[in-house]
């Protein structure tokens, strides 16, 4: 009885989570532009998608910015956590407080304030400004992911490594790094997701001619979103699903051997 109830519950949750995506996938094959009518099965949106240079450029920009900003933010965030380990409690609390501000802030505040900062500094708006903005709001997420792992570390292992003859860098990479790696990875993934997702900060810090997927989609709201976007979203979903399946399959095989 309880088993059946559990299965029903899980199914309902999955339906709730994935119904919108499945609808989207259906509509990407819909010949009619309207969401209310089914006009016949077609692959023309997929064809038009690959011929649309603007959308492909926006996709490229989105992925590049997400990857670069999360990589750099991860490095900065990890180093920051390391430093915080050795700070006095009071300084650590202050830094944590400052770190939390971008997360608690409304994104529009972050976006407009970064825009004004770049104007004051006389920077030309373009790819670089978006990248800097994304790194800025990504760092807190990395710190938040790495901090707990750092706290759990036994400080003596690092010192033991030093005693045994390792240089500081060697000790870090061979002893500390593997221990906090899960935290770093989850921080990286979080930063990547937040960057992919972002609209308002990107809108205010981008220059003319540069678009990410989110800004491209938002500008189509007044006239109605092009079905090429449904096709693109379907492709992204399927790719991510395949990647996740791959990643989750291989370790099991290895441990089974």
């Amino acid at each position, binding site marked *: 009885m309880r088993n059946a109830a559990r299965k029903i519950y899980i199914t309902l949750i999955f339906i709730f989570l994935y119904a919108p995506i499945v609808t989207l996938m259906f509509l990407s094959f819909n010949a009619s532009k*309207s969401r*209310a009518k089914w006009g016949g099965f077609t692959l023309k949106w997929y064809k038009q998608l690959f011929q649309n240079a603007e959308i492909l450029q926006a996709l490229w920009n989105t992925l590049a910015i997400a990857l670069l900003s999360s990589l750099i933010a991860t490095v900065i965030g990890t180093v920051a956590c390391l430093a915080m380990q050795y700070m006095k409690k009071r300084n650590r609390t202050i830094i944590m407080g400052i770190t939390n501000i971008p997360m608690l802030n409304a994104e529009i505040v972050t976006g407009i304030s970064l825009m004004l900062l770049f104007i004051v500094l006389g920077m030309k708006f373009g*790819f670089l400004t978006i990248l800097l903005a994304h790194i800025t709001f990504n760092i807190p997420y990395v710190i938040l992911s790495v901090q707990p792992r750092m706290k759990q570390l036994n400080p003596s292992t690092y010192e033991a490594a030093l005693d045994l003859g390792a240089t500081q860098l060697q000790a870090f990479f061979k002893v500390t790094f593997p221990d906090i790696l899960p935290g770093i990875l989850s921080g990286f993934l979080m930063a990547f997701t937040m960057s992919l997702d972002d609209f308002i900060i990107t*809108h205010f810090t981008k*220059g003319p001619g540069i678009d990410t997927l989110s800004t491209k989609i938002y500008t189509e709201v007044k*006239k109605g979103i092009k079905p090429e976007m449904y096709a693109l979203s379907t492709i992204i979903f399927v790719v991510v699903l395949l990647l996740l399946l791959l990643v989750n399959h291989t370790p099991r095989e290895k441990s089974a051997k």
Partner: protein
Amino acid sequence: MKKLIALGLCTCMTAALLSGCGSANKYPNGKVYVYNWGEYIDPETLDMFEKETGIQVIYDEFDTNETMYPKVEAGASNYDVVCPSDYMIQKMIDNDLLQELNWDNIPNAKANIGAQYYEHSEAFDPGNRYAVPYCWGTVGILYNKTMVDEPVTSWSILWDEKYADSILMQDSVRDLFMVGLKSLGYSMNSTDEKELNEAKDLLIQQKPLVQAYVIDQVRDKMIGNEAALGVIYSGEAIFTQRENPDLEYVIPKEGTNVWIDSWVIPKNAENVENAEKFIDFMCRGDIALLNFDYITYSTPNTAAQALIEDDDIRNSKIAFPDLSQYDGLETFSYLGDDADALYNDLWKEIKSK
């Protein structure tokens, strides 16, 4: 191994990214920065402009007037040509963000754009000094002929209890109040507290009959026969009629909003000459026709209207209504911060009931 692959991918991506910046000499005559609504221009016209003039178009898009305004005001990127809506142009003029146009440099603008559109533009651009109309339209009632068997002539039909839960209203402050004020016979630019409160009470009365307050969802809902009546923009009406031939669009007798999106040149524009060439190009009959076919919103360009091949569309009462036939046609003015605040407060009251 995995790390090597990851590193290799990263370098490939950055290299490919950077390789895209070498095409400077295709465009000997400089650049023009254009800021326009999303999906509001035929991309082919941009290519044609670049080929004909040798000026590179750096194109940027926005989704609402309100997100466009802070970017232009802050001067983050100095746009040369922007396409705001009526009331927003007035706000920009009041805040000294626009420069007056030199009409001698844009001959197509005076020659091809109908005089009646300039007359309507005076509501937000007195003296026609700053703006060249690009797209325009009306707001009206879209109704389903199979669900409504009486003639639709007045805004008051949206209060008819026969259509309870089958009415769609616009989810935007000024558009909603426009319907309320017009049905009471007041101006939709009213700042009179008594009139606004009357409109607010009327809209609250209507609330139980409304199926939903929507923006662009009104299109799909009407096509899907989910509602009998909806307030909609004329540009969308043609599209919905094509998808669902049972739909009919009408401008009520009390009058309605005539909206106009126009090209303006901000004060901090760096390429004013190129901007003027761009606007002049867009006002050419053949170019305006291409844009009309792509956007499907009505064009104020009389030369383009004459070139439309399909008789139904050229003479369409929806796309090109004879504005002289209607009373009470108005265009939105910018009402100032205090009036805006009043409208917002009253709207919140309606939404919260």
